[in-house]
């Protein structure tokens, strides 16, 4: 009993981390229809930025979110404006461009750091709280709380603010959105900026948990893709809940099958999902042509 609880809790917390990375990825895909292969590297940049802020400016990793989010937001806007917008009419080239960005950022950080492994140890990072017989790590609980807040705020904003409605309008029909007076290019910049900012925020939240490396984005991005397919392309609640499903699957398979099979298990789910229900759990049938699926 204690073991099952422990496995489920670790799956839940791991899922929180996956959701965190997947939400930004899914927002960008849902609105701009670009699969951002560099999303994991944005997370990695967020981690290094947090690390620098901690060591140079003595800013707590969680406080660093206030710095890292805007930093990545601006970076995202620049990527959208000067790379993706120029390739607007060539979707395949956009995908290659984000892949190029992935390689560039990884190697850039590798060159700068020389591949040294950095980590941050704050008093919080090794703290744990007891849930029944199980000890859970505080930084993971904080990440779970943060992703829950992000999902709620994002979903609320998309549904209830004019900017949010405009973003959804752009996702569904850009020509019609232009006729409403919506600046589509600006909406793309905003969306990509927020998506990148969320990746940066994810980086800050992951820094107390993981050792930094230039390739660390890869650990999350594959899971995030599985989350996105499982939850539904473009859906915020889908990315949120999908994260937990993938996290749970990984934890259960890792414990009851074999630790080396844990990723194979969610890849199996990923492929079955693509075959059985390509719109994902939260996708609306027929919506793959129009983009963002926010539940009504």
């Amino acid at each position, binding site marked *: 009993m204690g073991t099952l609880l422990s496995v489920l809790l670790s799956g839940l917390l791991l899922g929180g981390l996956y959701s965190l990375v997947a939400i930004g990825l899914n927002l960008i895909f849902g609105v701009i229809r670009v699969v951002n292969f560099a999303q994991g590297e944005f997370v990695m940049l967020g981690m290094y930025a947090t690390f620098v802020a901690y060591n140079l400016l003595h800013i707590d990793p969680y406080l660093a979110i206030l710095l890292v989010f805007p930093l990545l937001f601006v970076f995202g806007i620049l990527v959208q404006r000067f790379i993706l917008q120029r390739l607007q009419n060539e979707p395949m080239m956009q995908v290659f461009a984000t892949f190029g960005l992935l390689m560039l950022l990884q190697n850039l950080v590798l060159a700068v750091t020389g591949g040294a492994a950095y980590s941050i140890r704050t008093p919080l990072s090794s703290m744990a709280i007891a849930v029944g017989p199980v000890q859970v790590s505080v930084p993971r609980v904080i990440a779970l709380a943060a992703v829950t807040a992000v999902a709620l705020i994002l979903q609320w904003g998309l549904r209830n603010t*004019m900017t949010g*409605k*405009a973003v*959804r*309008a752009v996702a*569904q*029909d850009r*020509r*019609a*959105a*232009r*006729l*409403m*007076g*919506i*600046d*589509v290019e600006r909406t793309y910049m905003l969306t990509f900026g927020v998506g990148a900012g969320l990746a940066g925020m994810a980086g800050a939240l992951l820094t107390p948990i993981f050792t930094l490396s230039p390739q660390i984005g890869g650990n999350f991005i594959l899971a995030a893709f599985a989350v996105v397919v499982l939850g539904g392309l473009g859906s915020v609640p889908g990315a949120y809940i999908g994260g937990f499903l993938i996290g749970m699957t990984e934890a259960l398979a890792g414990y009851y099958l074999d630790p080396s099979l844990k990723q194979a298990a969610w890849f199996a789910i990923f492929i079955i999902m693509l075959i059985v229900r390509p719109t994902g759990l939260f996708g*609306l049938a027929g*919506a793959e042509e*129009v983009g*963002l*699926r*926010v539940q*009504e």
Partner: protein
Amino acid sequence: MMSLLTVEGLCAGYGELPVLHEVSLHVAEGEIVAIVGANGAGKSTLLSAIAGLLRPTAGRISFRGADITGRAAHRGPGAGLAMVPEGGKLFPFLTVEDNLLLGGYTNEDAKARAARLDEAMDTFPILRERRGQLAGKLSGGERQMCAVARAMMSRPALMMLDEPSVGLSPLMVERIFSVVETLVRREKLTVLLVEQNVGEALELADRAYVLDHGAIVLGGPAAELRRDARIRETYMGL
């Protein structure tokens, strides 16, 4: 009467394919002007170019005295130019209410937008009933009404309508056209209407142009065109 919209020598097309050939027309304040023509004549292309969705290759478009040639489409509604595209182009996964609110995206604060929303739903009571429903679930007639109401949300001076009658029953066409007439009177609206339904369009319009293979081949008061033998034969099957 002052000319609200003037188009001179407009050429436009898609990539290498030219569609419009030196189109010139004007629309005066308070008029309903129809552009009629067969499938593929270039009617939608013309409206797209005026709206700024398509960059003209030559010619000049002026609206309210300002040169708007090649201006980005999203600057239209704020300046008094609204368009109802072919098929309405509602946002299918947004509610009717959100679709309407987005029509007033540019130039009003939340309160004024809400008041305008109320007016729109007074004009089209069915939209009040359907306000919480997804726009993609509306019937053809409701969809077209929602599209017209959405365009009206920005209080445009000129509304361009691309084939509002397509796929609708004669009764529904009648209703939509009668609302358009009401709006023209009540809101001092000017209308540029594209139609294949030539008979109905010439009933509604004050003046009309005939577009054929991307060029204006005929123009004049709608009443005269209704009697024109060539029009009756080619477009009205009489």
